[in-house]
């Protein structure tokens, strides 16, 4: 397939790996922020190609995983209201809150449907004028503009049976928090490719300039990821941290201003809770006054509780890159994809799910650790 096969060419990937082997003189700790990168690294077996002195940790880049438990309980509470249809991205349905999940609500009779886009949720509202349709709006910069477009459309068409639970988060804020964490060992950041399509590279400039972190924006094919890692290692070795755009075919330096304008029309920044990270200033999005009537939490008068994480679950640490799944006593035992304890085991982009799916069990980790 065009624009895919070229960047999967095994000869090319191996050659970049070979250059990486030569470049990596010292240990380098790199965080891959985006869950799609995590999955791609496993799927293509890139961990085997990356020199041992480079450690990769996953970050808070799975929008489903960072949604606080209290907000999930609130969604389940709305789902239980008679006549409501919940429209949600698939992963969100199975994520456990503090007390329940959308899946449990469905088992108890709620109408919970999976959609791939906010636009499909709006379609459901058009088709069911006598039912309230609530879209669970998770996502980072990449997802928010499309949701904004759907809300604007609902507003223009006066669709009064459509609303959203705004769970959207913005990416750079938690990265600052992680870099400021005492003892943070992270030297490089593989920046999320598709968030960057929207924000442009400038959103990450503060990382090298304020924290000396080497950054590379990378695509999702094996050669893209290997090149991104190589760029970070070279930046660290040369003492020249900056933001390198290794994904020029999709990311313009200025990002996508049109998409940002749509998001800004509908949403304003607000302080928000993240699972594992706590309350982060201006890291969430609330509906602006003009669109506030589309806020499902207000419509149904529900106030999310600052819910606790499931007992024993290490997701909080995992989302901060401070632990790996095998350090969690529940991993592969009580917590498996078919009955997940925490969100990281649910989402296709979740770190625990990736480790489980690709069988990165204890042996492999002991190899890396010694």
């Amino acid at each position, binding site marked *: 397939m*065009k624009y895919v096969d070229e960047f999967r060419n095994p000869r090319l990937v191996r*050659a970049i790996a070979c250059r990486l082997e030569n470049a990596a003189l010292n240990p380098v700790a790199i965080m891959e922020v985006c869950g*799609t990168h995590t999955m791609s690294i496993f799927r293509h077996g890139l961990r085997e190609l990356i020199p041992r002195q480079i450690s990769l940790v996953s970050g808070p880049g799975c929008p489903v995983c960072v949604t606080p438990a209290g907000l999930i309980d609130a969604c389940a509470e709305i789902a239980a209201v008679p006549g409501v249809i919940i429209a949600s991205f698939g992963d969100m349905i199975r994520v456990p809150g503090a007390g329940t999940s959308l899946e449990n609500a469905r088992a108890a009779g709620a109408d919970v449907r999976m959609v791939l886009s906010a*636009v499909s949720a709006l379609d459901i509202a058009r088709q069911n004028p006598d039912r309230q349709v609530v879209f669970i709006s998770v996502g980072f910069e990449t*997802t928010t503009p499309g949701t904004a477009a759907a809300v604007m459309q609902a507003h*223009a068409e006066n669709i009064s049976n459509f609303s959203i639970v705004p769970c959207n988060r913005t990416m750079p804020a938690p990265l600052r928090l992680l870099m400021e964490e005492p003892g943070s060992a992270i030297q490089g950041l593989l920046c999320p490719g598709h968030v960057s399509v929207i924000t442009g590279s400038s959103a990450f400039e503060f990382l090298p300039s304020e924290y000396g972190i080497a950054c590379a924006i990378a695509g999702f094919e094996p050669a893209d990821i290997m*090149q991104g890692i190589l760029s970070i290692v070279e930046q660290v070795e040369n003492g020249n941290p900056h933001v390198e755009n290794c994904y020029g*075919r999709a990311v313009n330096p200025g990002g996508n201003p049109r998409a940002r304008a*749509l998001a800004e029309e509908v949403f304003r920044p607000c302080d928000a809770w993240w699972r594992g990270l706590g309350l982060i200033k201006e890291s969430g999005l609330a509906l602006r006054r003009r669109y506030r009537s589309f806020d499902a939490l207000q419509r149904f008068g529900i106030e999310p509780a600052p819910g606790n994480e499931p007992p024993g679950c290490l997701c909080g640490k995992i989302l901060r890159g401070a632990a790996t799944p095998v350090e969690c006593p529940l991993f592969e035992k009580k917590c498996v994809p078919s009955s997940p304890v925490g969100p990281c085991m649910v989402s296709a982009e979740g770190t625990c799910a990736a480790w489980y799916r690709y069988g990165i069990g204890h042996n492999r980790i002991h190899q890396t650790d010694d």
Partner: protein
Amino acid sequence: MCLAIPVKVIETRGGTDALLDPPVAIVDAEGIRQEVRLDLVDRMPEPGDWLIVHAGFAINCLDPEEARKNLELMNEMAGQVGKAADIS
């Protein structure tokens, strides 16, 4: 929800009104036809163009010239290593 692979435009429709008749593209995503919204891209793509799609919306048109440069740079790296490996 994040489609990491680009999709190819087959045809485009709509676009007479940004809100009431938003522009859409019919795309081929690994053999499956899908409709994606074009609200977020700054130009109407042509059939045969490639799009990056996320949650039902195209977020950018892929730039073929930049894709060529991407690959050239990678091949350059690979080439250098190849030579070094030949010598040793």
